[in-house]
């Protein structure tokens, strides 16, 4: 942004482009590889999106396959199952986004208030380790831990005398189980960026607040949080793009016929459908549908962030 405006200052009226290129051509040459990369690997393949509107056959190619209009998209919405899957996806993804934003912020603030560096560092490391485990592993552990005779039920029974709870087999409990386990796995990792933000706050703000007689709580409320706001908005906006990603790996490894009604999401539904291999048109249509929705949401949230918080990400 900055260099452009300065060049504008130098050449207010003349055709800016030719002069600009002449002056800064080495910079533009440096851009070429990344431009080529983006156009070959990001924009080029977009031609393939045409398949969403085709009955695609590999040996006929895009030019030879039959055009079938919106049939592939209609198939997404054709059945109750699919609609239920969309609803489930939204509920699970939105819950994950909300708790996935709030909890790391709270934890980051609490952690930054700890004075003992040793404790602070070890907590930080411990909570972010699960992020690196694969869902296949975690799901295996969860199935054992949350089973009717698993560790958690054993604890509940012996401590509170509660009947064993079928966490993974009860439609009402499945979504909370999914959201909480995802939170457990990922909040530590999400915290890192907030901790860094807090560490970067100018200490003179706190000194000033202290001189004005602010308590620690008031300092958090009036100094720490406002300073974190830009980062919170960036993270929140970016995560809205995931609104249709409820976490395929996690759910695929944990769901079962008893909880299809609340746990089946778009990705698992499509996965099962495409077990009948080679349905390129349908697969592409689902992908395109998800991308379009995500794109719209990102644009909206970007605008909102600008309007409400006067903050521009790009």
């Amino acid at each position, binding site marked *: 942004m900055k260099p452009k405006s300065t060049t504008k200052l130098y050449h207010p009226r003349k055709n800016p482009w030719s002069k600009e290129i002449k002056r800064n051509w080495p910079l533009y040459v440096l851009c070429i590889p990344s431009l080529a990369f983006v156009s070959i690997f990001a924009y080029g*393949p977009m031609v*393939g999106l045409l398949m969403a509107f085709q009955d695609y056959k*590999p040996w006929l*190619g895009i030019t030879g396959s039959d055009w079938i209009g919106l049939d592939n998209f209609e198939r997404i919405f054709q059945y109750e199952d699919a609609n239920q899957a969309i609803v489930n996806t939204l509920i699970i993804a939105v819950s994950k986004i909300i708790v996935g934003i709030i909890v790391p912020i709270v934890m980051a603030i609490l952690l930054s208030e700890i004075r003992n560096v040793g404790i602070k560092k070890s907590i930080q490391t411990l909570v972010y380790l699960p992020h690196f485990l694969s869902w296949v592993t975690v799901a295996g552990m969860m199935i054992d831990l949350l089973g009717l005779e698993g560790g958690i039920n054993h604890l509940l029974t012996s401590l509170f005398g509660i009947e064993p709870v079928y966490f993974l087999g009860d439609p009402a409990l499945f979504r909370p189980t999914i959201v909480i386990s995802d939170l457990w796995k990922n909040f530590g990792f999400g915290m890192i960026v907030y901790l860094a933000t807090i560490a970067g706050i100018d200490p003179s703000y706190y000194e000033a607040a202290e001189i004005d007689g602010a308590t620690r709580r008031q300092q958090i409320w009036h100094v720490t949080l406002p300073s974190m706001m830009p980062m919170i908005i960036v993270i929140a906006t970016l995560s809205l793009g995931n609104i249709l990603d409820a976490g395929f790996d996690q759910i695929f490894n944990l769901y*079962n*016929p*008893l909880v299809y009604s609340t746990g089946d999401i778009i990705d698992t539904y499509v996965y099962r459908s495409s077990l009948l291999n*080679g349905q390129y048109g349908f*697969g592409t249509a689902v*992908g395109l549908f998800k991308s379009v929705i995500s794109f719209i949401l990102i644009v909206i949230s970007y605008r909102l962030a600008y309007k409400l918080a006067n903050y521009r990400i790009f």
Partner: protein
Amino acid sequence: MKKASGLLVAVMVAASLIAGCSSGGNSPSQEQPSTLKDGKYDPPITITIAKQLDENAGKYLEGESLNDNVLTRWGAENLGIKIETTLLGGDAGQYNNKLRLALTGSEKLPDVIPVYDTMLANDLIQSGRVREITEDIKTYMPERLKDIYKEYPTTFNPVVQDGKVYGMAIAPNLTEGEVMLIRQDWLDNLNLKAPTTIEEFERVIAAFTNDDPDRNGAKDTYGFTFSGKDSYNTGWVSDPVMIFSAYTGKHIPRHWYEEEGSGKIVYGSVHEGNKEALAKLRDWYSQGYLNKELATKGAWDAIADFTEGKAGIIVGRPWLYGSVMDVEKNISGAKVGVYPTINGVNGDKTYQSAQLNDGVFMFNKDFNNMEAFFLYYDKLYDAAFGTGDFKYGYAQGYDYDMVNGEVTFDPQKFNKPLEAVQGVGKMAFTKNTPSVDGPGKSFYDLANGAEPNTGVLIRANAADPTTKAGYVISYENREVLLPGAFNGPPTKTMQSSWEQLTTMEQETFTKIIYSEEPIEAFDDFVKQWHEKGGEQITEEVNEWYKNANEVDVMSNMGLK
């Protein structure tokens, strides 16, 4: 899955756009014609092949590799045929995608193409890039292979179109059926006999649950473990299909069955007998006789309770004993017995889905050396028949060895000990070593006094007694193995609705067993199944079957 497949699709399209212009330019350049003399080609020829998974990868002996190993060298020396893998895929999805890329023309289609996906086989036929082989089979297939293919006419159905044959099953063979593994020590403790009917079965699992069969004073055991996560007919381990078949006969769940008489093909899961079977399972579940978490356990996870000594009965193919035998080590006094699956309510046996082959061979349209292929393929069967160069195995010091005049298959006892035997039979065209043993003929023969004098028999003889007994049972009961009548590509309505129907099926069955829905939910399921596409699919399946059998291709291929 989402992003990766999107990218792959996209790359594929890009590739097809680029490659569109260059395809067709790779017609085989014929040098001087090679001739077959005394069973050997001179000058040597090369057959290119596709391979889904190189199971030997990372295990080849020093200095050997995919395209240069003991078997390829043997072929080059003795047959004058070089095998070269030009298309290699990792897992099924990747392999299929590579083959589809080959269809777009961006990769060369090899001469011999094993295909493991019916939809892909159909795509290959539609594309017109694979060879019609009716005449080749008639002319070049050796008699002993013809005898094998004669036994399994249905394996041609997926590759027949308008009376023309575009492929053949890979090493067809009726694979072993499932047997029942029971805690023999529990039966003995309670003075019970192995169950043969539903009533006896119920009595045994009730006793296993309530009468403390392990004599430890705690109620910590139950009767029967199986999986309900993905299907009630897994066909290999942890399935309760015998309970369903007890009430439905040959109409087993998740299975297309050709009704005797009418010749109509029907889907097993909607047979009214399933309702009674579900009622029984529901009752057993509420009594605590079954694995409480069967809905969340996959087939392989459901065996854990048996291995840990919690469950008393599990069903699986005979080799399952090898995977659960730890229970005999974990728990003192534990012993596993092996028995046939129970009989149905009308006294008939209970049936299972049979597996005849894994995939089909297809051939590039431009491949003109079918005779060479059959020569090689037939040689690979030597190990199964115990003839020729491969009487005991494929290569001494690789998959067998002679130690002090005795044949051994134990790699630790080899003259030059190996960590594991080499899968030499899998180094050429086939993913599995060809077999003519059916569901356990060698074990049956041994049990009836045959001398272990071929590789197959010696190997069978080396198995532990329980596994051996399991295979004998599997062979004796081979008539309960029903090949599915529908083995073609997904029909049009299947592509759009099948997943929805099976989801509904699995959900309904499971919820009935868990008492979360009334038994009448089954009637509703049957009605919905027909309305939501099942009716249409049944018609299409029958249509497909008619088309596949319209022309007597077996006679045309000289296989009658």
